[in-house]
């Protein structure tokens, strides 16, 4: 292999950002110059700051937005890049692993060395077809690749292999349910197209900004670009659209959908127009949002900004431009103004044959599709679960599978949902684990629910057992036996325990019988303690009351 060493490139800030005087402020600007360029390095800084402020700002912007928005309508469309989790890159046999040392997963092909040629990874087509079907798209039986040409140091060939006029999938839609806390509601948003393309490398900028280094690890990694119709009207809708896409790609197993790693990147186009006007307003593109909540806030901020300009009669100040979301300032700001359309000089990629799909291939993929989030939600709804439960369970494929398996084992749906959303979810959150990493099996959860339901154990004991099961595994039955946790339901046994406690506390008994009836709680506690928590509480109380009164 060639010696892998890249020269540093010295870059003039003004050249890269002719319109931006902010360039010196931070490295973010460099990174996000192109839609597909990584933001990872700089995103990390923002995350923590953002979280603290998140809530207060959310509510604040929400109020102002409602106020501002009256009489105006926002039109939102989203371009999403999804990085595919194929074993190898799109056109060569290099692996790609996020976070590996710069320039270690590269070869002459993804470096664009003279004489090298791309060969299509068939998994890319398979994944594109999967997503196309999942998004209810029409598939192009004959599609082709095109070259999108521009110069940038992270683009080794001087062109990106993409699809231009014949994308692999078009005209689809996505169904989703808005979160209950945002008012809920079902939405369907149109999908304009899905196309396959390759990712570019990354530029690592020096602290001083005087030079940059090229990392080509990511060059040639397959992406699907999903373009939505301009169907969204608010930050919440847009954020939920992105969240549903994330769910879909995770359900399908085509991507890890991780926004922080840049596996799911959204560029949002927003315009505002007076309600009732048919013509669209000038659209502004926003980039650099690394979470759904950031998307929500960035969009609502941008809508307010544009509505305000409209109100003040300064709508001419809304210009076609790319703005970046600044998480620290909770504002969008100009990155670059567009001076006419860039001419990418697309033409058909002569190194790759056409992509021809056959019906059997598509049918086979269609049959292999898992149950998708929308279908799952509708099914859960029919089980009688609340929308909040439905959304929670269907959000994560693994959680949904766990739930389904528990119900299959006979667990009551509502009870299973409660356990999963309550104690199990809390544990997972605290321990930062996923549901498939814990030792509790769906079968044991259903057993646990059954044992509580039939009174073998109390709910309190059930909880204790649950944590035991989660961390150590085992079966409910053996734990109950091993720890002798079976609830005492024999009235005679409980009666004996009560007698014992009453005998041991003559003073209190006297006080009780003297009218201090509050002491019943004390006796109940003592009996429960004596039974090691196993006495059936209802029975205990009944017998205790009887015995307390019997003697008077």
């Amino acid at each position, binding site marked *: 292999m060639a010696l892998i060493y890249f020269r540093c*490139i010295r870059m003039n800030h003004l050249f890269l950002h002719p319109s931006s005087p902010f360039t010196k402020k931070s490295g973010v600007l460099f990174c996000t110059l192109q839609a597909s360029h990584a933001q990872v390095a700089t995103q990390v800084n923002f995350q923590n700051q953002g979280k603290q402020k998140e809530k207060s700002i959310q509510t604040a912007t929400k109020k102002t937005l409602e106020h501002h928005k009256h009489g105006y309508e926002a039109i939102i469309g989203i371009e999403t890049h999804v990085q595919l989790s194929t074993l190898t890159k799109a056109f060569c046999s290099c692996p790609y692993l996020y976070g590996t040392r710069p320039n270690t997963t590269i070869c002459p092909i993804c470096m664009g060395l003279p*004489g090298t040629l791309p060969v299509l990874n068939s998994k890319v087509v398979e994944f594109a077809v999967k997503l196309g079907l999942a998004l209810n798209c029409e598939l192009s039986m004959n599609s082709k690749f095109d070259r999108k040409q521009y110069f940038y140091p992270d683009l080794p060939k*001087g062109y990106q292999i993409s699809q231009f006029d014949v994308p692999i999938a078009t005209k689809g839609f996505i169904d989703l349910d808005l979160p209950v806390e945002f008012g809920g509601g079902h939405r369907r948003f149109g999908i304009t197209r899905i196309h396959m393309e390759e990712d570019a490398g990354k530029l690592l900028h020096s602290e001083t900004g005087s030079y940059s280094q090229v990392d080509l690890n990511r060059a040639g990694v397959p992406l699907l670009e999903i373009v939505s119709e301009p169907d969204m009207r608010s930050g919440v809708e847009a954020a939920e659209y992105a969240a549903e896409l994330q769910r879909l790609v995770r359900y399908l197993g085509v991507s890890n959908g991780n926004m922080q790693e840049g596996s799911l990147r959204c560029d949002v186009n927003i315009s505002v127009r007076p309600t009732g006007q048919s013509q669209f307003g000038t659209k502004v593109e926003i980039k650099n949002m690394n979470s759904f909540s950031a998307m929500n806030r960035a969009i609502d901020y941008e809508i307010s900004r544009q509505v305000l300009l409209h109100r003040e009669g300064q709508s001419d100040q809304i210009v076609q431009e790319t703005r970046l979301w600044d998480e620290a300032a909770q504002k969008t700001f100009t990155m670059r103004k567009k001076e006419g359309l860039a001419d990418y000089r697309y033409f058909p990629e002569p190194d790759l*044959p056409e*992509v021809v799909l056959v019906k059997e*291939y598509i049918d*086979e993929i269609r049959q292999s599709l898992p149950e998708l989030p929308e279908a799952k939600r509708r099914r859960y709804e029919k089980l009688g679960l609340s929308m909040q439960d439905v959304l929670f369970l269907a959000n994560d494929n693994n959680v949904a599978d766990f739930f389904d398996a528990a119900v299959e084992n006979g667990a009551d749906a509502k009870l299973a949902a409660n356990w999963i959303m309550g104690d199990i979810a809390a544990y997972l959150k605290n321990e930062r684990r996923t549901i498939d990493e814990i030792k509790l099996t769906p079968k044991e959860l259903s057993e646990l629910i059954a044992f509580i339901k039939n009174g073998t154990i109390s709910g309190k004991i059930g909880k204790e057992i649950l944590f035991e099961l989660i961390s150590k595994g085992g079966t409910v039955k053996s734990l109950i036996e091993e720890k002798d946790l079976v609830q005492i339901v024999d009235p005679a046994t409980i009666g004996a325990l009560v007698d014992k406690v009453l005998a041991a506390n003559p003073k209190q008994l006297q006080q009780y019988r003297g009218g201090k009836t509050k002491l019943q709680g004390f006796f109940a506690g003592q009996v429960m303690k004596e039974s090691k928590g196993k006495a059936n509480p209802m029975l205990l109380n009944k017998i205790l009351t009887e015995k307390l009164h019997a003697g008077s």
Partner: protein
Amino acid sequence: MYSIRVSPPGPHRFAFFAGPKPSLCGERVSARRSAMPSPIQNPRFLLYHRCLPLHFPPNPFPFPPNPRRLLHRSTAALSPQPAPAPQTLTSAVPPSSEILSIRESLLSRRKTAAEIAAEYLDRLRRTEQQLRSFLHVSETAMREAEEVDGLVESGAELGPLTGVLVAVKDNICTADMPSTGGSRILGSYRPAFDATAVKRLREAGAIIVGKTNLDEFGMGSTTESSGFQVTTNPWDVSRVPGGSSGGSAAAVSARQCVVSLGSDTGGSVRQPASFCGVVGMKPTYGRVSRFGLMAYASSLDVIGCFGSSVVDAAILLSAISGHDRLDATSSKHEVSDYASQLVSLDHLESKPLKGLRVGVIRETIGEGVDLGVMSSVQAAASHLEQLGSIVTEVSLPSFSLGLPAYYILASSEASSNLSRYDGVRYGYQATADELSSLYGDSRANGLGPEVKLRILMGTYALSAGYYDAYYKRAQQVRTLVRKSFKDALDKNDILISPAAPSAAYKIGEKTNDPLAMYAGDIMTVNVNLAGLPALVVPCGFVEGGPAGLPVGLQMIGAAFHEGKLLRVGHIFEQTLQNHRFIPPLLAET
């Protein structure tokens, strides 16, 4: 189940459909001029108006009188007289395979590989000062030859190219030698890998003797556009060897190597073969892997072969052909052992080509073509006829459209393919303190004028608003060209034409007239547009230089019919009387 069906490479890859068929070339020049609406609006490309009225003159088709079968009306005498004296006087031994004779020498222990290599390397050094056909000569060739001798000693099985010195055009990557593509921008570049063709050569036992000169990235027809040096023609060192594979052609002609690899995008193997009097084979698009060939125009580029005999070209082609998983456009079409199908002279019947239908492309014989070239080709046609084939004239109506379409498509693809030479990762890097000047200066200083011209043309043709008028239109023409070849090849087994409108011209003669130089590609570009195989065999001489200048006959076949072309070419070559294609430079040394 593997269900991604991928359309076959070659002729069907571009599914552009022609609109209403434009009225193509009429019978007469004047009619053509007025009736034909120019499909290409850029006057730069209106070459055929100026210099390519290649139709037959209305009357004489000056084939020599033929006792058996009069081809055309004409009984006119040959004019002018072809072939100056010297060659006709030398003993007319038909060319024999150097590869087979090397193999014979090694197997019979008559000569060692080291002796053979020394012989070639010695000749290479003696002639190189005048020819300048190599950009780099291997330092390990002698050692490799000694290793071959060890292999021979050990009695191991020898590959078909064992001990054969092969020169490789410098736009084909070699891991152990620089590969510059003839460009200053890759002046210091050494690839990390061997091209698939080179890898296969090595596997067949070949010794890569060096890297040959070319027009920068294959863009040119004379090898004068090389970023490094001008190669001369062994037949007359004041003339060009043709291009862009001029170095590879000259090296074989002067026997600086046994055989060589070239690349052919618009004629870059066939035209220099013709100029240098050697055999040149341009295979079907996709027959040979392009992996490791520096892309000029990806949909047209093929790696081709040079040899001093058809057998050598056939052996070389067999060695490098076949599907390659590193090239998605390479074909899975079966590769036959081309050389084994070539019958030796002794076994030839009196009419070995009996029944072979040969079409002379009408548009390639006529005005714009040197008279000497024309008569050589006509003599060749007559020779084929004597061998039993049925020679008729065939018209390719879209022929003249091919040249402008070719230059649009090739330039468009080149503008894209050459984007990677940006000074960032490898090759020449200008000193610059900001990105735009890094790009600008690296490319301005690293690339030569012809390359820049074509990048500009291609960028223009692909620009928004021009794409439909140029690139898309040219693709439509390409579909037409393909169709007219298909029609002609349905009626004929092979088509013939000159390989170039003239023999080798003087160095510098056309450097200031790029259009005249582009026009010289008229004979060959259509074949690339159609993706077909074509073989050029020396067929005669015209006056010029100390010993006359060779003329090549181009034979064009249907896709993947290389075997047929080689069989016909071999019989033609073995039965050609009174010509010996040994350049004077070689005779002197």
